[in-house]
């Protein structure tokens, strides 16, 4: 079951972005870990899509974490406290700590962004952007790129089926799969371009280039309270970052 929405998608998106900024600025593993455990983890578990987000997180962060561990854990040049000397590689405490800090931060970024992206109500986001008077072209770019994803996936699948029906054999090996993928790319792009040229006229005839402010079919779910909250959040994070940067810079 998708989670019940409490906040407007713009508020969710802004919160996610500011959390990423905070973790970037406050360069402490304790802080990153706290955000991971107290913010990201509950958000994933309460999202109603914990399994899908978990899988996506594993796919995105897994290879990064492993490579970071191998690179920094074994080849950290400033490493002094050596745990294991393997000749060309040395496992150092400093290297492991650095890999852990980087790993936690990567997990926070990926967790925050993936959870937001995979649970965001795009329709409501676009409606809010429209109600707030954002540029209609920007709203269209955001909306149509998200809207096109399932269409592109479906069309790619159809082309693959047609090619297989005509004799293309896609094996299980990576080379064969890559060949199959390449065979789909050109017709997929051409098909999308043909659609786009038709869509261009459709946009014109449906008044997309009109000069008046665009309206929205969906009612405005944004509230004055949330708008104030967003401003305060922005201000609060901005100030915190400034203070942290001033305090933490060594004199």
């Amino acid at each position, binding site marked *: 079951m998708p989670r019940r929405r409490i906040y407007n998608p713009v508020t969710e998106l802004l919160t996610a972005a500011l959390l990423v900024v905070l973790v970037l600025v406050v360069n402490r593993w304790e802080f990153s870990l706290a955000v991971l455990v107290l913010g990201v983890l509950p958000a994933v578990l309460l999202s109603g899509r914990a399994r899908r987000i978990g899988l996506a997180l594993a796919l995105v962060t897994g290879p990064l974490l492993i490579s970071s561990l191998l690179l920094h854990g074994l080849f950290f040049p400033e490493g002094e406290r050596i745990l294991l000397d393997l000749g060309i590689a040395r496992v150092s405490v400093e290297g492991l700590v650095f890999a852990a800090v980087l790993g936690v931060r990567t997990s926070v970024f990926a967790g925050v962004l993936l959870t937001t992206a995979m649970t965001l109500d*795009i*329709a409501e986001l*676009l409606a809010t952007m*429209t109600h707030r008077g954002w540029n*209609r072209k920007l*709203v*269209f770019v955001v*909306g*149509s790129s*998200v*809207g*096109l994803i*399932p*269409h592109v996936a479906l*069309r790619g699948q*159809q*082309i693959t*089926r*047609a*090619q*297989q*029906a*005509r*004799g*293309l*054999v*896609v*094996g299980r090996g990576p080379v064969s799969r890559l060949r199959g993928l390449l*065979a*789909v790319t*050109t*017709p997929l792009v*051409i*098909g999308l371009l*043909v*659609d*786009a*040229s*038709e*869509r261009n*006229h*459709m*946009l*014109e*005839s*449906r*008044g*997309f*280039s*009109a000069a*008046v*402010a*665009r*309206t*929205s*079919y*969906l*009612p*405005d779910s944004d509230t004055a309270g949330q708008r104030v909250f967003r401003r305060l959040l922005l201000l609060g994070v901005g100030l915190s970052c400034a203070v942290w940067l001033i305090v933490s810079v060594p004199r």
Partner: protein
Amino acid sequence: MISLEVGSFAHDGAAPALTDVSLSVQPGEHVVVTGASGSGKTTLVRLLAGLTGLDAGATLLGSITLGDQRLRFDGSPQDPRIDAARWSAQVAYVAQGAWGQLSMMSSTVGEEVAFGLANRGVPGAQLRSRVEEVAAVLGLTPLLHRDPRRLSGGQLQRTLIAAAVVQRPRVLVLDEPFQGLDDDAVREVAAALEVLRGEGTGVVVSAPLLPLDAPRSARVLALAGGRPVFDGPLVDARSAGLGRYGIGTVGEPPGAAAVEDPTSAGTGAGPVLVELRNVSFSYPDERGARPVSGLRGVDLEVRPGEIVALRGPNGSGKSTLLQHLDGLLRAGGGSVTVDGTLIGRQPTGSFAGTVGYLFQDTDQQLFERTVLREVAYGPRVTGARRAEAERRAAAALAEVGLRAVGEVHPYELGFVQRRLVALASLIATGPRLWVLDEPTAGLDAPARGTMAALLAAHARAGGAVVLATHDAAFAEVVAHRSLWLDDGRIVREGR
């Protein structure tokens, strides 16, 4: 209300696509613009929609009058340009190819219908009431919260019509709105058009065949080679001998002269080519709910020389059954044997030499840069050398009557020709079994005749055909037997 006088219209430097054509549409009138593929009907309806293409090098000699505004064109660079947004407020247009018509940024039918009004800044409350109004008229109210990308063909076409007419135009122009739709969807869309016409909207529909589901008062403008060959009431058009211009009527048998009586062919000869034994199949449901049953206990035998038609309503399992014949779907229970090979875990592509598949949606199966490359794709990936593959492709194109378009991009062809290219692609690979999903949907009369003749010739040569179709007249003439499916079972067999 709107009238068009075309002395001549030509695309960039090409021969005239339209010559001496005039058309005027009054409030509440239903006009059918008909003609075989390449007759100029799409060009004509696009001109009505204000798409003159003058900026792309087209030349128009004539005039377009909308209400009291008359635009004259004399082929000079100073000719007036039509503002698409202003024109569409009075003349709404729904082009071919439903996907290109969707804004792709609406997650519900309601938003999609509202898109044009929202762009023009109509306030939210008024916008919603206009959408509800037009949805009620077109029977879309229960669909307003559905995702427009997941609608059936008829529902999608009605959504596009709603999106076009929500601006309350005086004229609605539709280019082949029934293309690829089954009978139920055609009736759905025709009923929606009738409601709009009843409210005073002038309706112009282009179609390759004279329709059955048009009002009795409908007027027909028939074109051949860009010139008018008939202009008058629909009832008169049916007896005006338009067949000589390649214009048939929906529900007519295909060009009978080309097809031999199927009962006289040597059916049932030789070993079984296709054998399905107690085949069952369920579509897995994405959200882990109960799987949707596609086929239940299906038995079928097809021998060389046979043409078998699968018939039945939408969702009865026709396409599902077809996709079992070349391994696109694998049976959940029972067995499928084609030309002596039991379909198991082999890759789908390995059956292409034996089974050729024509998909219902033509555009999902055309993916090459030129028609010749497209048709040669099958022979090449099944092992033929390039020269041999191109020779076979050229022969297949000649068989479907498309000798001259080898170097053209498939997307530059009209729908009928694209359909024939897809068929040629199948023929070139040389399979014994042809599996065709709705092979006649959207075809004009000559192409329907070609299709019938090719099927009969393939069967005579010892091949077999299994086709799914809503085209009863075609099945009755071409198929040796028909199987009626309902809810995944074969419920009846006959002619």
